[in-house]
């Protein structure tokens, strides 16, 4: 078995008296897609905000590449190769694809932008992800579809040489065709050796794309299953709390 790139051990987070994460364990493997599912308010966003460094955990251990680390700012996460693509994407519609992919990390030579170099890298990054639906890398983001925007946001993370890309509900706002496009992209990311943690409400998507499924229920990780050993009914049961996950029983049932 591959060693996990990220491992969370017993992380906790509370807001005042409310405990939102009650000792959560999670592993994200390089080259594999891990899904994080759970009902609204289960604590999914809180969990990834901790990983992104924007809202540090109160306690618990975070291991990245086997080493214990402290994630207290987005820069910490970025340095460790952890990139988050938030649901609202945070792209500038008035800028083009290249400018968005390099925003904040523009390459300059003698004080002026190296537009050619950036264009080339953006092209080859998109090419390596087999993105073929865009007319030109100099297209304004305002002219892109939802799926294409998601693609640009993900490509931005890849360009950053991310080791792990965390996607918050990447398909929530997309139609069928565009969802498929983004799921293909997620698989391709994993093929390149990137670890992917995908949050989704859509179990069809999760089963189509994920290798592992982690179920969060009221701040507790109630199930960690291999996609191939599980089915939708079981996962729905874990999400709603109607079913209890018991690793041994699961094994015995097979």
């Amino acid at each position: 078995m591959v060693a996990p790139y990220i491992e969370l051990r017993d992380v906790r987070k509370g807001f005042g008296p409310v405990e939102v994460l009650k000792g959560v364990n999670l592993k994200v493997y390089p080259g594999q897609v891990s899904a994080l599912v759970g009902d609204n308010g289960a604590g999914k966003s809180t969990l990834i905000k901790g990983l992104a460094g924007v809202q540090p955990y109160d306690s618990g251990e975070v291991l990245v590449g086997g080493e214990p680390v402290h994630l207290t700012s987005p820069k910490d996460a970025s340095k460790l190769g952890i990139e988050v693509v938030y649901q609202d994407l945070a792209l500038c519609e008035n800028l083009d694809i290249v400018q968005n992919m390099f925003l904040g990390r523009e390459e300059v030579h003698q004080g002026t932008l190296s537009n050619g170099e950036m264009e080339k890298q953006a092209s080859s990054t998109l090419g390596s992800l087999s993105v073929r639906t865009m007319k030109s890398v100099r297209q304004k983001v305002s002219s892109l579809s939802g799926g294409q925007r998601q693609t640009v946001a993900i490509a931005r993370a890849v360009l950053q040489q991310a080791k792990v890309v965390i996607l918050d509900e990447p398909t929530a706002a997309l139609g069928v065709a565009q969802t498929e496009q983004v799921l293909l992209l997620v698989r391709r990311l994993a093929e390149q050796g990137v670890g992917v943690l995908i949050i989704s409400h859509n179990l069809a998507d999760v089963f189509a794309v994920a290798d592992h499924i982690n179920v969060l229920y009221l701040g507790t990780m109630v199930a960690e299953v291999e996609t191939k050993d599980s089915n939708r009914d079981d996962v729905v049961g874990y999400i709603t709390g109607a079913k209890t996950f018991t690793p041994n029983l699961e094994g015995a049932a097979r």
Partner: protein
Amino acid sequence: MTTEQKDVDTSLAAKIDTAGGATPPGIATGYEGTAADQFRAYVSRVRSGEMGMLPALGGFVVLCILFQILSPDFLSLPNIANLMTQTAFLGMLAVALVFVILIAEIDLSAGVTAGVGMAVFVQLNNGMGVNWILAFAISLAVGIVIGLFIGYFVAKVGIPSFVVTLGLFLGFQGLQLVILGDGNTYRVTEPAVTAIENSNIPPVVGWILWAIAVLVTLGTAFYDRGRRVRAGVPVRGIGLLFARVAVIAVVSGAVVFLLNLNRGNNPLFPIAGVPIVVPIVVALLWIGTQILDRTRWGIHLYAVGGNPEAARRAGINVAAIRISAFVLCSGLAIVSGLFQASQVGVVGSSFGQTDVLNGVAAAVVGGVSLFGGRGRLVQGLVGALVITAIANGLGLLALPGGINLLVTGGVLVLAATVDALSRKRAGASLARV
């Protein structure tokens, strides 16, 4: 259930395989293809709502034709020169305002900032006999401090720029009075300052500056092309490069040629040459455009205007960008004040008070979006040219002053409508900002 999932899985895997088997297709950069392809791409961008200053330029041409029909003096040599010197100050103010409009802010105090700056200038220059360059440097410094002040309250304290600068708009009228002394009006006595708007550069120097401008345009075009070639990305055909430079050379050459003709009535005292203010405006515009187009700061300014949250998450210091935009706006407003002082020849307590809304109007007419993130400096100048042409042309027709304001207002609403419609076309709804 299980079989159904397997189906989804395999179909996805199959697609990945076929996709992986093919060589990754290159994505176009917009630089490929023939000149005709480039032109078609440009037309389709325009049609999708990226019209830039096209409507304003079109409007300007229509105005020129209309006024020329109504009054043959409109396109006479002296009036063309007039139009340029009259545009200079409003154009500079509009260019100043573009920096803050690009980040979806406003500076209602830009006009009175120019007023305060010029009040300081005349007090130092006339009152205390300070050398005019030093006096102007001090007024510029005053402008920068004003910009820092506005920027601090907008970016750090979080007060809307409309409110901060409305406060300053009122307050600075008082400050002008305090600096000038009650009821005092100063004449601009420094010949160098008067010359900016009222004297011309010798025709030969005009041609030399023209040649320098053309060479710089050609040089930067080759520099950019060379960098793209070294980076190994497609470049446009070399013919297109020469054609672009040639158009710029011919149009600017025609202007220089016309302005170098004698436009005076008395053959003994010919009036010829490009007004001094013109190369100054062109140089400032060129520098500002280079900074916006070629530096990280420039792209960050556009990013803050387009989506401040995205800019923040990308690690951009949004507050610093905002403050710097206000500093540039106030500083350039002082420059526009110098042009106006040169043109009208006096600085009184109401100097600059009615100008700022015309400046904003010029930017909007030029196609700069008040919603931020879209627009270029030159659009401020083109908008100012339209507004100045309306005032100038209607003035020639000796129509009552009220008509001028009515027409300018109508043009402004028209321009804002074009902006709103093109935003809709570009698919950028207001709700998404």
